[in-house]
Each structure stands twice: as structure tokens, then as C-alpha cells.
């Protein structure tokens, strides 16, 4: 059995109600590692031939929640959720942190693969070497806090009944919120109230399968590693490195960015990306810090960075909201991007997004898109049923709840920004797609390209994860580190020395994987499967690389204010970088992977399917 792995995967078919164990050859695990890589492999093997007909929110899709060998051993454990993405129709690896992945590995499973669709709401309970499907009607439709309370109690009671003298029966779980249940394409897979795997919209995939949650409680030890003493030394090195050099991250997380990224690098979305600069000092991290933070560190198990802070609104009209203090992304999207410049209001909206199970990046992007259409009088009071001015927290809350209930216009907006834009263009007879900020259906993270100080020009355009800001493309190699992080599944904020992880990987698994091999063969292999899935897409939307390997139109409008006023992304530069990237990674000038590249990587089956679109 390979080291670092629990050794088997739980394969659940919800249509038939069957649960079985499945394993993969060592050679597959060595190549694809786990998480994003292994998910791409599983999805391609099982769905590749009929990829264009699989509806992401239909029963044919497969939902995977996988760990990797580093999970739970390297600091910062995460779970990687994947499947055919309801946003991009491709494969996206989306991770979130919490105790679930460590618990899962302690049950003896490395991951859960869910196919089919249950006839009524269910959740999957994973205990030592055993998986079972259980009724979830009691928690279906409930918002996060209530759901967490009921589910935790139910599972604890059940586990205590089975083993009366067990020491600890507190489970870890991932779940989808009400947004996921309504198959909202911007719904996240959630964990611990406020942790979300947002990109990709896998909350909708869970919801479409009537799968409310996956719960794990393990009592077995973590898997053996090849060289415990080396792993211990490396682990201490990483932890010490983080503790002694990451003071800023440990003190504030990324929650100091709400003012900073806008004012200093002009790359924070403001009012649906119409601007990327503001100088509202009231929105600085220190204001969140003094008034709302109640806990300096809120770490998940096994994390020494502790970038999470807990925030509570203790007074005023929005009193009572509790969430993890918005990190930079949520500060941006639930702050300036909705015209909100008050930390309290931002925290209130963040708590709402978490409670409803929206992705804090994708969901608010859609809200801001509607805000802009209202500003331009394309959508009016008649369409919405209320006024929607920038900065009106209660109105945006109402809109978010409409989307979750799929009421009126909410039904259109639940399909995500791009699909909603297509529909609204049809309804209104005005082309509103230039206002939709997305790349391949995935709404973009809060890092603009226009000032030139933040995201590089093709960072999103050429990424196989669409608008994902954590998987940015600079040249043919830069993305490979994120592919590794998502595949070995650990937190990028716990990466102290990127070169150290390869030593860690070798000591852990005993495999002689080197950085060179990963960057030239193993990483590209995963990228190419993701690329193929993305190119074939379907059934509702397919992407044309000539048109869609690009930034949204908004990114080519000049910045209207601030120190970088007038500056914008250069189309010629984007085209040039794109050509260079295609050439370097081995794609033809149309952006389709070349046959010889795929053969070199041993992906003949991918080549066979791509032949269909390669004319």
C-alpha cells in the first residue's frame, strides 16, 4: 500500500443506494496524487467519452471529495471537491479547510466519490472502514447554523449509541447550504459554517444529487508515512518557518486587504468592477480588527498559520451576525463591489452568504452584476420588486434570498453571472454580456489586471480553472505549484518554502517525484485533462478558445479613477502572451492540445476525444 494514503476510496451510488470500496493502482496515485489531479482522472475515465452530454446538475455527474497524501500531515488540511463544474462545464479543483479531511483519513478512506441521485434528501456517514447513506430530511432546507446544530447532535448521539464509552464523537462534515439545494450555480461546498470551496459551484452538484452532507468520524490513526523522522523534521521546519516569518498573515490573515489592495494597487473590484480603486479608510483592516474581531486565532486542526479570525456584530441594527472575519476576497466582493464601505455591513453580508451556502466570490459577483444592470436601468423596480441602490445591504440580502428561492428574476440569476447575462440579454433585447465579469463561466477573484500591479494579463484567460485567482497562469510552469497544492491537498497559506514540499512529498510517500518531473510531466497531465474537459464542455455552453481564452470586456475598459486612471489591460499583450503560453505548454494556435503533446504525456484517450473538435 502506498504510504501517506489511507488506501481506499468510498464509492457511493445514490441512485442504487449502494456503497462500496474502491482502490486505484499505485501508478495512478503516483501520477495524479489525489485531490484535483485524481478527481480529473476519475471524472475523465468515467465520463470522458460522453462528457458533452453530462449535465453538471443532473444525475449523471459525479461529485468527488478527495484528500491527498499531504492532507492532515503537512500543516493546513483541506478537502478538494470536484466534478463536472456547473459553472465552466469543465473540471475544477476547489478546496476548503476544516476537520473533515483529517477525520476522513482517520476512517481509512482517502476520499468519497458520489454518483447518481438519491430519491429523497440523504447524507453520507463515514465511520471506520464503513460508509452508509442516511436520511437527511431533518436538515434539508436548513440554514448553516441550525443545520450544523441538528446534524452534529444527531451524529454524536448515533455514534455514542454505537460505542457508549467513545472519548470523542464530534464529527467533521462538508455540506451544501440552501443555495446548493436550489442548484444555484454559485453555491459552495461548505464546512464549519464559514469555510467554503466556492469556485466551480459544487454546492449545486451536491444539491442536485439530494446529497446534503458528507459526515466523517474516524478513530484510526493517520496513515503511515515512509520516513516518520524525516517528515517530523520537515514538519517542524515548515511550522517554525511560518511562525517566525508569517507574522502578518498570522496577525491579520488577508483581512487587512479591503482598503489596501484598492488604494495601493488599484485592483479591487468596486461597484461590479466599474472601478478598481477607492480610498475609503473606513474600510481598513484595522477597523474590522478593533470593533468586530473577537478571537485572534481560529485555526483548523493541524494549522499553524491561523489566518482565520472570528467576527461578531455586537451592537447596532445588524447586531447578531457571526462569521469568520471576511478575508480579503469577501471584504472586496461584499464591500466595495456592492458599494458597501462599512466593515459591519460587510460582515453582515458575509455571514448571510455563509449561512445560505453561497460561494463568497461567485455569488456576490452575480449580485453586483444585477446592481450594475439596475444602475444602467436595464433591470428596474418592476423586474426586481424593490429598489437596488449600491450599498443597500438589506436590498442585496433580499436579492440573495430571492436567488436561493428561485423567485422571479432570482430563477434566472441562480444560473450564475454569465448564464444570467445571456438570458437577460434575450429578455431585454440589450446585450448585457459585457457587464458580466467572468472567465469561462467562473466569476473572477478580487484581483484585477488593469493596473498591472496584481494579476498578470493572462492569469485568468489561460487558466483551466477559469476565474480562479489561486491558479494563475504566468508561463507554462507557474500554475503547476497550484496544481500540486490542490492535488496533494494542503493550504497555500501554509506553504513556507515551495521547494521544501517536494522533500516532504518524498519522505511521506517514498516516491521519487521531483519538482522537475512534476512541472514537466505530471502537472501538465492534469492540466491537459482539465483543458480537454473544458474545451468539450456542454451540454448548455461550450467555450471557443479564440474568443473565451480572454479576459472579460470590462478588463479592457480604462480605469476611471485613482493613481492608475486611464490604464487598462493591453489586448495586444494578452494575445502575445497567450500565443507564447500555447506554444510553451504544447497547444496548437487554436488553443487545443496537440496530439504529440498528449502522446508524450500518455493521454491517448484524451487525444481520441479531442479529435472531435480538432478540425
Amino acid at each position, binding site marked *: 500500500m502506498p504510504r501517506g494514503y489511507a488506501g481506499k476510496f468510498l464509492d457511493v451510488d445514490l441512485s442504487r443506494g449502494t456503497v462500496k470500496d474502491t482502490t486505484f493502482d499505485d501508478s495512478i496515485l503516483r501520477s495524479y496524487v489525489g485531490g484535483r489531479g485524481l478527481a480529473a482522472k476519475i471524472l475523465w475515465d468515467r465520463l470522458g467519452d460522453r462528457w458533452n452530454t453530462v449535465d453538471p446538475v443532473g444525475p449523471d455527474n459525479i461529485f468527488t471529495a478527495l484528500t491527498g497524501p499531504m492532507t492532515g500531515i503537512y500543516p493546513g488540511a483541506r478537502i478538494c471537491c470536484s466534478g463536472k463544474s456547473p459553472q465552466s462545464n469543465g473540471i475544477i479543483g476547489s478546496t476548503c479547510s476544516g476537520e473533515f479531511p483529517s477525520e476522513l483519513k482517520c476512517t481509512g478512506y482517502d476520499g468519497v466519490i458520489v454518483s447518481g441521485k438519491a430519491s429523497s434528501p440523504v447524507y453520507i456517514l463515514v465511520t471506520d472502514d464503513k460508509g452508509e447513506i442516511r436520511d437527511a430530511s431533518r436538515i434539508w432546507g436548513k440554514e448553516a447554523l441550525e443545520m450544523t446544530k441538528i446534524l452534529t447532535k444527531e451524529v454524536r448521539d448515533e455514534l455514542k449509541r454505537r460505542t457508549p464509552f467513545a472519548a470523542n464523537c464530534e464529527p467533521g462534515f462538508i455540506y451544501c447550504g440552501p443555495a446548493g439545494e436550489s442548484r444555484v450555480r454559485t453555491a459552495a461546498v461548505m464546512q464549519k459554517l464559514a469555510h467554503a470551496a466556492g469556485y466551480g459551484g459544487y454546492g449545486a452538484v451536491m444539491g442536485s444529487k439530494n446529497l446534503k452532507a458528507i459526515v466523517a468520524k474516524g478513530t484510526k490513526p493517520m496513515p503511515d508515512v515512509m520516513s516518520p523522522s524525516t517528515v517530523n523534521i520537515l514538519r517542524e521546519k515548515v511550522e517554525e518557518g511560518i511562525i517566525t*516569518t508569517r*507574522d502578518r498573515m498570522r496577525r491579520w490573515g488577508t483581512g*487587512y486587504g479591503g482598503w489596501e489592495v484598492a488604494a495601493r494597487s488599484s485592483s479591487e473590484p468596486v461597484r461590479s468592477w466599474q472601478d478598481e480603486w477607492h480610498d475609503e479608510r473606513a474600510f481598513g483592516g484595522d477597523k474590522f480588527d*478593533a470593533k468586530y474581531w473577537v478571537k485572534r486565532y481560529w485555526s483548523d486542526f493541524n494549522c499553524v498559520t491561523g489566518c482565520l479570525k472570528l467576527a461578531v456584530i*455586537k*451592537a447596532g441594527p445588524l447586531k447578531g451576525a457571526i462569521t469568520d472575519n471576511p478575508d480579503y476576497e469577501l471584504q472586496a466582493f461584499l464591500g466595495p463591489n456592492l458599494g458597501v464601505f462599512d466593515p459591519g455591513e460587510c460582515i453582515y453580508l458575509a455571514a448571510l452568504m455563509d449561512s445560505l451556502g453561497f460561494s463568497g466570490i461567485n455569488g456576490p459577483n452575480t449580485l453586483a452584476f444585477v446592481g450594475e444592470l439596475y444602475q444602467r436601468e436595464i433591470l428596474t423596480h418592476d423586474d426586481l420588486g424593490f429598489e437596488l441602490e449600491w450599498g443597500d445591504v438589506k436590498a442585496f440580502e433580499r436579492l440573495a434570498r430571492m436567488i436561493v428561492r428561485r423567485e422571479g428574476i432570482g430563477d434566472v440569476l441562480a444560473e450564475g453571472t454569465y448564464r444570467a447575462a445571456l438570458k437577460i440579454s434575450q429578455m431585454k433585447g440589450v446585450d448585457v454580456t459585457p457587464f458580466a465579469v467572468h472567465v469561462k463561466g467562473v466569476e473572477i477573484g478580487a484581483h484585477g489586471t488593469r493596473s498591472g500591479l496584481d494579476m498578470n494579463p493572462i492569469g485568468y484567460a489561460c487558466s483551466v480553472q477559469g476565474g480562479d485567482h489561486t491558479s494563475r497562469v504566468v508561463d507554462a510552469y507557474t500554475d503547476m505549484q497550484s496544481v500540486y497544492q490542490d492535488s496533494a491537498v494542503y493550504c497555500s497559506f501554509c506553504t513556507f518554502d515551495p521547494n521544501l514540499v517536494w522533500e516532504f512529498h518524498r519522505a511521506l510517500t517514498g516516491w521519487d517525484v521531483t519538482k522537475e518531473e512534476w512541472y514537466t510531466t505530471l502537472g501538465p497531465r492534469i492540466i491537459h485533462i482539465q483543458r480537454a474537459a473544458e474545451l468539450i464542455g456542454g451540454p448548455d455552453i461550450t467555450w471557443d478558445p479564440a474568443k473565451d481564452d480572454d479576459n472579460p470586456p470590462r478588463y479592457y475598459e480604462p480605469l476611471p479613477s485613482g493613481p492608475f486612471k486611464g490604464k487598462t489591460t493591453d489586448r495586444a499583450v494578452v494575445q502575445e502572451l497567450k500565443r507564447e503560453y500555447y506554444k510553451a505548454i504544447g497547444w496548437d494556435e487554436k488553443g487545443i492540445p496537440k496530439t504529440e503533446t498528449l502522446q508524450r504525456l500518455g493521454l491517448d484517450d484524451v487525444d481520441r476525444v479531442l479529435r472531435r473538435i480538432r478540425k
Partner: protein
Amino acid sequence: MLVPGVEIPHLCAQCSDYPCVASCPTKALSVSERTSAVLVDNEKCISCGKCIEACPGKVPFLHPATKKALICDLCDGDPECVKACQKANFDAIWLVREPQVGFGGLSHKLFARTPEEVTKDVAINLYGEKGEELI
């Protein structure tokens, strides 16, 4: 202490654009190359108070005896206040070592606020609605 229990240390935030230095009519203030802290040349200081007006947090003050401007010089890179706080294990003040990454480091200027302002926030954080009454 403006509200019982809410103690706000009033310290120089080390702004990166140095409004105090820019405001000095006699160029008595300069920036240390080694520590980036503000240094006062007592010979040149005319006690005009311009630096105090310029400071967003109103941190500098005039020495009661000499009437010369007093601004935190970070004790030449090893601040005594931090040492005292750490020695006592209060851990309320500590050094945040800052690698030059991202957009050039944290925006210190945001933290240049008067204790009155910060007290309002912290009082609510500590006491909730009761804090509003106490202010």
C-alpha cells in the same frame, strides 16, 4: 482610558509616506535609513507643532521640559515597550516582522488613529451595546 477597561496604547504607526516629515518647516525630521523610523534633530526643531497636526493619529508630542518634538524612533530597531510587554507575558504589543511581499507591505497609516477613535470600536467589541452607553 476613556472607557473603563478599554486601554488603547497610543503608538506611532510608522506610516510609509511620513506626513510628519513632510510637514516640518525646518527639516528637523528625517527618516532613519536603517530602521525607517522618524528621527528628530533637536537643534533644528522650533516647537511649532506642525508634525502633530499632520499626524493622522496625533501621535507626536512636545517634550514637557525641552519643548522639542518627540516621535517614536523605534529605540534604534529594538523597541523597549515591546520588550517590557513581552517580558510581562501580556503579549499586547509585539513586533510584526514584515517581508517585502505583495504590494510593499502592510498599510501602516491605517493604524494611525487617535485613542478616542479606537476606544469607540473596542468598547463595542468588549461590551456590545453597553459599550455604546459608556462612550
